């Protein structure tokens, strides 16, 4: 598999599971401050494996990988694995994990995006709105917001990063605000 193919597969099938994956990690890992690093490690493992071969069932593979990672981490750090880890096998993942066949309706997506935007810090929100909705260039945004080009870039980057966390990670919460 070439990297672009894996990129496409990853974006299409793995990223939509982020919310459930985070939930899974939270439920099974004591130190909540480590969740974002754990998530990254799960992603790295998934991506590495997909470079060799794209798994047949993304859903199963994603959660198997997450589970293995937690077990490895638990062993490595000599912490007692959670009781829940033992129960994972019994966990019926299929029931609550949205499959890749999940349809994203543009209208709902738009509502969610808007709700996500509203949760960003004011300056990042403004910069993203000017770029994504008004279609302004970075230079124009800098003029409009009366800040340097460099600062615009910082606000945009920060906004995108947080928006991704909201959109991928917090499905329920983002939806609840609508």
């Amino acid at each position, binding site marked *: 598999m070439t990297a672009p193919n894996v990129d496409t597969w990853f974006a299409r099938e793995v990223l939509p599971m982020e919310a459930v994956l985070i939930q899974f990690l939270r439920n099974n890992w004591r130190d909540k401050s480590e969740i974002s690093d754990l998530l990254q490690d799960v992603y790295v493992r998934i991506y590495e494996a997909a470079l060799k071969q794209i798994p047949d069932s993304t859903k199963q593979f994603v959660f198997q990988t997450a589970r293995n990672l937690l077990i490895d981490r638990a062993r490595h750090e000599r912490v007692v694995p959670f009781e829940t880890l033992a129960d994972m096998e019994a966990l019926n993942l299929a029931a609550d994990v949205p499959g890749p066949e999940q349809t994203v309706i543009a209208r709902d997506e738009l509502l969610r995006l808007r709700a996500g935007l509203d949760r960003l810090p004011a300056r990042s929100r403004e910069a993203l709105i000017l770029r994504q909705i008004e279609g302004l260039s*970075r230079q124009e945004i800098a003029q409009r917001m009366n800040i340097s080009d460099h600062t615009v870039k910082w606000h945009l980057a920060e906004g*995108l990063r947080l928006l991704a966390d909201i959109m991928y990670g917090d499905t329920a919460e983002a939806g609840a605000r609508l």
Partner: protein
Amino acid sequence: MSESCKSSATDIQKRAADWVFERHDSKTWSPEDQVKLDAWLNESIAHRVAYVRLETMLTRSNRLVALRVEPAKGGKRIEPQSQKRRFSLAAAAAVGLVTLAGTGAAVFLNAPQTQTYSTALGAHKTITLADGTRIELNTNTVLHARISARERSVWLDKGEAYFQVTHEETRPFVVTAGNYRVIDLGTAFSVRSDTNRLEVALVEGRARFEAARANIHMTPSDLTPGDVVVATAQKVIVTKKPEKKLASDLAWRQGLLVFNYTTLADAAAEFNRYNTKKLIIADQAAARLTVMGKFPATNVDLFGQVAKAALGVRIESRSNEIVISKQPTEK
């Protein structure tokens, strides 16, 4: 186990976000810049994953442009402004082109030829353009193609076609249908133009979907594989279709129609695109029945027989139509 680098996931994400905007905002993105980005991406898979995730997010958020229209109403829809004139304009434009091609040689010495390709009802044809691009025309389709040194343009007047585009950096490939156009960024995609509905499905690569006329307010939307755009006179909607569904929609390339819980009414409409012998659904009870399976698009009799056997409907075959009914017909 040290799968993450020393820097935290958040740090990597911040850097990745910088790169995404660097890449997408730069007006002078050079091969050297690309080398630098590639180097960073290749440093670790964590970098690549973070980049892919944020770039996907940026593309997703392109849909926010829809909010620009009708801010008072919340802008859930993109309202084309000149609905009534849309199709007549499209027709006029097409006629204009054909005329231009006819007399063009005398007026513009270098005017490239516009070729017209068409298929009859039930026919299926594959053509290869001068640039290597392959176009498959489905039933009852008319399109014009013009390949010049500076541009590659196709106008889809009616029907449906599948495009496998040979990507060229300097010569974009543009398909115009009705009020909208698709600009290839290295892709395979299909375009279906019905009387008041346009559907574009992106199968591979990337493409941009945008309004072809200045009076239609729609900011370009970048499509990724699986994206399906449906544009009617009232609105433009982008949805994601699973690969399987996309494949069934394109089964016509193999001469097949694929139904999956499709109502008999919709199935009949599909068959009627291909055949002079029309399927007529006589009553609502029959129209609501659903069918599944693969059928040769031009064998409407076979479909009638299968429907009769599987659904228990009544079939009345006449010379130029097949009437399907559920309720006994009143005498």
